[in-house]
């Protein structure tokens, strides 16, 4: 290269990065990265569907909170799907990427740190929406469950809001635990929470002791909010559920930020 061309290039305005495009690219690769990881994509997409079909065939015609269980379970397995998408994508992703030093490479790069988190949120939203679509389709095909478009959109909206509290919880776990222990910790949280909050079987058929523990779990309030959108009679006041869930989200975010800071501090020595 001659010095003349170098001067010409330097004189020309240095092209600016398009941050929105950067986040979209990052989201796309984040999505592909996990879609191709069967451990994640099967667990996130296929398990809720499988369980819906299984439990739907056992309990589909029972009534729970004023609606047929086949309808009830669209909301609850949708919730389970978004819950696992958010928890595991943030938790396992962050833990393993920290372990690989991939994070270090990104921190050295001029990537705005927020892009990493926005991409993970975008990816969890995509997976969550996919789960809801798949379960809605299965409910219609297997049990003839019809949900009005507006109701379905509010179901989708409520379910996707769950990415915030549970993504934050996953993030905290991802920063607090290593790549090998994070998946274990996440499963230890996910399975009891999902079960006790009525995400797998309607809460009304669970033993009374489990029902009495449920209100202390964020997932219970999440499920009740989602159930409200498909015509079930919610247990308790919707505003209260929303506030409790927001409270949990705030606590998880604070823990996640503290864990993130601690991790950065560690790397900074």
């Amino acid at each position, binding site marked *: 290269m001659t010095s003349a061309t170098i001067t010409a290039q330097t004189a020309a305005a240095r092209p600016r990065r398009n941050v929105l495009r950067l986040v979209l*690219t*990052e989201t796309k690769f984040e999505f592909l990265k996990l879609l191709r990881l069967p451990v994640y994509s099967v667990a996130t997409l296929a398990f809720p569907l499988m369980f819906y079909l299984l439990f739907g065939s056992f309990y589909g015609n029972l009534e729970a909170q004023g609606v047929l269980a086949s309808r009830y379970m669209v909301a609850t397995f949708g919730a389970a799907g978004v819950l696992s998408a958010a928890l595991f994508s943030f938790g396992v992703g962050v833990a393993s990427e920290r372990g690989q030093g991939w994070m270090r*490479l990104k921190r050295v790069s001029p990537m705005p740190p927020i892009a990493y988190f926005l991409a993970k949120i975008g990816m969890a939203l995509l997976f969550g929406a996919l789960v809801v679509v798949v379960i809605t389709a299965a409910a219609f095909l297997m049990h003839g469950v019809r949900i009005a478009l507006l109701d379905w959109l509010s179901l989708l909206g409520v379910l996707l809001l769950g990415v915030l509290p549970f993504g934050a919880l996953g993030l905290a776990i991802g920063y607090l635990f290593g790549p090998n222990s994070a998946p274990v910790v996440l499963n230890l949280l996910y399975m009891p929470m999902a079960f006790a909050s009525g995400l797998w079987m309607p809460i009304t058929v669970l033993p009374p002791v489990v029902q009495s523990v449920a209100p202390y779990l964020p997932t219970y309030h999440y499920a009740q909010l989602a159930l409200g959108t498909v015509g079930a009679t919610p247990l308790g006041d919707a505003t209260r559920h929303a506030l409790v869930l927001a409270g949990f989200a705030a606590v998880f975010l604070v823990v996640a930020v503290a864990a993130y800071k601690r991790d950065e501090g560690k790397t900074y020595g």
Partner: protein
Amino acid sequence: MNETYVAQLERVTKRYGPVMALDAVTLRVRAGEVVAVLGPNGAGKTTAVSTLLGLLRPDEGAASLFGTSPDDVAAKVRVGAMLQISGVPPTLTVREHLESFAAYYPRPLRVDDAIAIAGLEQVARRPYGKLSGGQKQRLHFALAMIGDPDLLFLDEPTTGLDVESRRDFWRQVRSFIGDGRTVVLTTHYLEEADALADRIVLLDEGRLIAEGTPAEIKARTAGKVVRAVTSLDPARLAALPGVNRVELVGAATELLTTDAEETVRELLAADRGLTGLEVTGASLEEAFLAITGGRHEAAAAYTEGVPA
């Protein structure tokens, strides 16, 4: 901070508990220079690079890139780094990894060009997890290059590669850094520093112990190697003037000496039957041993040309 330096450490000290990783190290890199930071494991090489990249905060002293803080985005867009990492996400392909990193920079290389530079054309669509060790290393190099950096960091870039892959890698680096890029390389292969660098900085136990061109580093020992097939016994050879090391290499004997002429004169006088006489400059391996005083077992391994 002085803007004439592309990368700069000014009396940087970094401790890990009782361990002094860097002890008042000053390193100034000018535009277009290829500097090798050379030393055994634990010498502080990676700490020095991490400090320059803003991954570590110095306890004392200051680090800067292009006259500004290493955290400054204006500096970051001009820097590429090949760090010691165990890997990147395995399910994305070579091309996808490069596309994602290209988006971080205002004026990146074309992804196809980066793939060609790194010699990854045949595996561009292959997921990272299915690449060979050498191919992974080449992708790490391409990721460092994708932003078309003015300053390139290579932190022990060929550790774990076989000799052939290592030489291939040097060829690629040389062809790419030819056009005025600045490079900071850390390595514990003396051959690597000699093959790539204009200037070598020797780091040992967190201290900068020598600095100069590869030729100057060798000259610092003022040493030569005298090689011959002789019937004299090693004790007699060690007593010759200037000789400070005697080594048997097959049928021949090698003497490391600070006064080659005097050594040869006495050697010829003492052994009339001597054959195969050769006098050569000391290698970097020998220079390193001479400068560190051969204190380290790690350093001893250099004479075999293997990593410590």
